[in-house]
């Protein structure tokens, strides 16, 4: 039981006045802080203090990231073709015959180019995972393709040790993402070209897209044209527009 303290009514009035004043000052300070955050200078179109918390969140969750922790997989009967939610980078006409994948090193040097058959020659993998959109919806879908880690193995010898991010962009350069290396190495990160045994549809990202249950859909770029290995974070379409750069799940 806590101790009960008796005080006189005069003392009480004094203390309650003090309490209300303190409370009022705290409320005013809180409101002021909130307004300050609202009007703070934007960093990649997010108010500075909130961007800072995004960065703190990233450091917490990326340090807890385990490459052997797998996202849940589902039965194919639960999967359906993914809803189309964005057309950024897909507005120019798809030129399947002329498509090729360009690979660049950290200083922009050309490391190689690939046809779709090159990617198809890598070991085949399939997954039925829950795709999550940053807007809130989720859908179980099917992806078939090559593990990015297998693709990476083709270049490992040529790359410096301090590669930290992979930058990818559409052939027209209108959409681009930057994804951390730990996620790219994860066994559930695929360069997908098929789903449900058919080539991926145009608006779902034909001929080649990134597919991973470890990031929101905004990171899973469709119609990849160029891949660049970087020593630091590269450009990121939505990261530059107020969203969390990491966008990890």
């Amino acid at each position, binding site marked *: 039981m*806590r101790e009960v303290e008796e005080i006189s*009514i005069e003392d*009480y009035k004094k203390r309650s006045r003090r309490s*209300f004043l303190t409370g009022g000052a*705290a409320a005013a300070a809180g409101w002021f802080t909130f307004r300050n955050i609202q009007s703070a200078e934007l960093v990649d179109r997010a108010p500075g203090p909130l961007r800072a918390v995004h960065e703190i969140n990233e450091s917490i969750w990326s340090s807890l990231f385990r490459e052997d922790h797998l*996202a849940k997989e589902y039965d194919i009967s639960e999967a359906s073709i993914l809803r189309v939610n964005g057309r950024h980078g897909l507005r120019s006409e798809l030129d399947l015959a002329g498509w090729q994948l360009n690979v660049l090193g950290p200083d922009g040097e050309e490391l190689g180019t690939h046809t779709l058959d090159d990617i198809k020659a890598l070991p085949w993998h399939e997954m039925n995972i829950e795709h*999550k959109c940053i*807007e809130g919806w989720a859908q179980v879908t099917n992806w078939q393709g090559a593990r990015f880690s297998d693709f990476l193995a083709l270049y490992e010898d040529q790359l410096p040790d301090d590669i930290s991010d992979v930058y990818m962009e559409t052939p027209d350069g209108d959409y681009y993402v930057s994804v951390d290396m730990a996620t790219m190495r994860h066994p559930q990160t695929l360069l997908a070209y098929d789903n449900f045994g058919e080539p991926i549809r145009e608006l779902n990202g034909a001929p080649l897209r990134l597919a991973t249950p470890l990031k929101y859909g905004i990171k899973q770029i469709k119609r990849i044209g160029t891949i660049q290995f970087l020593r630091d974070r590269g450009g990121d379409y939505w990261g530059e*527009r107020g969203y969390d750069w990491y966008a990890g799940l």
Partner: protein
Amino acid sequence: MHWINFPLITIMIWSGLRIYWAEQEFAFGILDWELFAFFPDGFNEALGLDRKLARGLAFHLSFGWLLTFNGAAYLAYLAGTGGWRQLVPTRDQLRRVPAVVLHDLGLRKEAPPKDGHYNGAQQLTYTVVILMGIVIVATGFALFKPVQLSFLVTMFGGYESARLIHFSTTMLFVAFFAVHMIQVVRAGRRNFTSMVTGYEVIDIAPADEPGSSPTPDSNGESDDMVVGTSNA
């Protein structure tokens, strides 16, 4: 700790609605007028989404930590001081809950017996609210990192289910807040003052055991004795 919840939860609901508007999965009629206003913007691509969803997420995922820390501090405080004994109802007190509720609704004349600091209905409500707080933070983390914290998602029956629980618990918080406010107003000025100062004014007559006989309903400004436990 109690008062910090109000601005924090307000910000969480405000930013949460911005997130919700991006994908209004649960068809709740009340929000229709807002959804209508949102859609033209939403289709306005980058700007529409950017202004609302991105900012909403940034606020939600920042202030969520403050709410989590505040909640953890409060739980530690309850455990450390033994204050939880005032909150968690005993079986006897639970039995008197219907009487309290009927009395408050004006359906039962005689007042239920005084039960110490809080009556049974208050204890039940406040205990449930604390549990709701735990659920809303846990589902929040499940939605925030559904792969890394997959055990939480499993616990709440999947991602969609965690989302629904997160949203419904928010609605329960709003409902609780409405009743909470009505009750505070009904309990009168003295009670409100005691919420802020940690002291409550009691009439002098039953001064033998001050703590157990508060008289919040007594009218008048009798200049009597003041007792309090200096908790905030």
